[in-house]
């Protein structure tokens, strides 16, 4: 198991650091930050499956996230279910909801899907706000029990950091596995040319619904984890601005780059925290990231080739280079 490239070494070093960090450090703030990064990694990777790999422009990811969070909170609080069962069930509930959304969304062009999922996100948030009896209304749900995993009971930020990293790693392994095989090629074929994909026998309907289901499943798990970590949730955490924040993370890491989503989530979670003075500019950073990345590095922060190409073109002077040239 010797890494074959500089990138491989960096990854191995990163993983090793993540592994020994709990023994090196005793700083609840850092662990909290990393635990939240882990949650956003799961959200970003699962959204990337839709936007980046399948070309389904979904703007309502926070709806699935919120559904998972509320489902898990209510299942443990009102139905007395143990955390592991509620965790799994909230993922499955979100997946069912996601597939139900994915099915009618099949025929829609990208902008209509974007508008519809945006509307859906708002509807979910409004229901969470207005169904006072069930969801606690705008005040939210306090007192959600901390996760009890029979053998271990998570309580300290350090525990949650380890659990969040395991959740992110598990999500990565499952999604990477799905994407490296036949389903992954099918999804990318659908993204690049749906008609062509259909003509070579890709079951576009099944794959799109499945992509929505799997994506929502992981968002639901992230929601459940978030609810039991913070022990308090309110509708404000699951609005459109949350969906947009996740989109900024996916874009920063690169659309269609699964590993990039890990970086995108980590960077956008930690940059405003590391530079404390930037705290007030959190939203501004998210917005600027979206604009700059899409304009300058459309394949994400790891791929600098578009910028290099632009540099070469600029150096070779005006009127030369570029694809539209030729004799």
């Amino acid at each position, binding site marked *: 198991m010797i890494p074959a490239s500089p990138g491989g070494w960096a990854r191995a070093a990163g993983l090793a650091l993540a592994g020994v960090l709990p023994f090196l450090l005793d700083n609840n703030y850092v662990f909290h930050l990393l635990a939240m990064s882990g949650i956003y990694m799961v959200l970003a990777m699962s959204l990337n499956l839709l936007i980046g790999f399948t*070309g389904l422009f979904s703007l309502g990811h926070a709806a699935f996230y919120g559904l998972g969070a509320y489902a898990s909170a209510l299942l443990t609080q009102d139905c007395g279910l143990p955390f592991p069962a509620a965790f799994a069930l909230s993922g499955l509930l979100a997946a069912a909801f996601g597939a139900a959304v994915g099915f009618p969304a099949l025929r829609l062009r*990208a902008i209509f899907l974007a508008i519809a999922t945006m509307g859906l996100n708002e509807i979910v948030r409004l229901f969470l706000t207005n169904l006072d009896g069930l969801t606690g209304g705008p005040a939210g749900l306090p007192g959600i029990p901390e996760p009890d995993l029979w053998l271990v009971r998570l309580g300290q930020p350090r525990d949650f950091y380890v659990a969040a990293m395991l959740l992110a790693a598990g999500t990565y392994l499952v999604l990477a596995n799905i994407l490296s095989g036949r389903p992954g090629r099918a999804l990318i074929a659908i993204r690049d040319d749906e*008609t062509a994909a259909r003509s070579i026998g890709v079951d576009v309907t099944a794959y799109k619904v499945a992509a929505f289901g799997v994506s929502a499943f992981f968002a639901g798990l992230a929601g459940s984890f978030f609810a039991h970590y913070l022990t308090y949730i309110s509708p404000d955490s699951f609005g459109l601005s949350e969906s947009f924040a996740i989109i900024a993370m996916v874009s920063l890491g690169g659309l269609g780059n699964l590993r990039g989503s890990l970086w995108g989530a980590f960077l956008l979670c930690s940059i405003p925290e590391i530079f404390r003075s930037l705290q007030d500019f959190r939203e501004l950073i998210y917005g600027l990231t*979206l*604009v700059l990345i899409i304009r300058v590095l459309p394949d994400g922060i790891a791929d600098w080739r578009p910028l290099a190409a632009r540099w070469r073109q600029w150096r070779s002077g005006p009127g030369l280079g570029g694809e539209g040239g030729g004799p």
Partner: protein
Amino acid sequence: MLAQQLFNGLILGGLYALLAVGFSLIVGILKMITFAHGEVFMAGAFAGLAALGLFSPGVALAAALPAAAGGAAILGAVTELVAFRPFRRGPEMTPALITIGFSIILQALALMLAGADTKPFPFNPDFGRWTAGGVVFSGLELGIAGLALAILAGLGLVIARTDWGLALRATAAHFQAAQLMGINTDRVVLSAFVLASGMAGIGGILFGAHYGAFYPLMGVVISMKALAAATLGGIGNVGGAVVGALLLGLIESLVVGYVSANYRDVIAFSILILVILIRPAGILGRREEEKV
């Protein structure tokens, strides 16, 4: 009661229409969408508010409208040049993502510059109040409705009767063919953005006057409603956007009057989703088959 609700719905519909026609203009020409339209509306409102503060109440109203329209139009032009022009031939997702970034940036900037608290209208815009047939009209409301109607009618005339309108319709019908016919499509697109944004800006200052409130997130909900209205009328169809906006305004005020104010937004967004699922071309649109 019913008449009053209908009147309120008409005013609301007029405000929605000023934004909805902008969505329809842009989507009609480019088949691409902007998500920063609500923030252009908000920026226009704040530009108008700034102008209101500079002048004495008599002149201020006359100064606020061009300030709102101008401020918003500049932002619209920037949006077109930065987010749309370089990516016109790429996937429709690209400009949408950039405009999402714009909307976040503009909200954050407004929050930093103006603060989170709601600003009131700087003076009391009282132009009298009349009662007719159980409906209370205020001069302000009549002014807002009249101005919105005049702008929309003017837009309809310009599109139907002027050379620019012809160029716009040609560009919307077939971008490349219009280009081959010698139409400066770049200029048409830019002017459509300027016009759409200017109307959004005027909508912003009228909204601020109507509700007596200016705040950084004022464009979020109304732009989604306007998008719902444009979709209801058939997005890309400017006349349809007006019909959809008035219809949505009426439905909403009836829901508020007879059902529950809590669910007015739910109804609006449910209509949006239902229209997209059942009849994506809208109530006035014709179905289009996608060509390979």
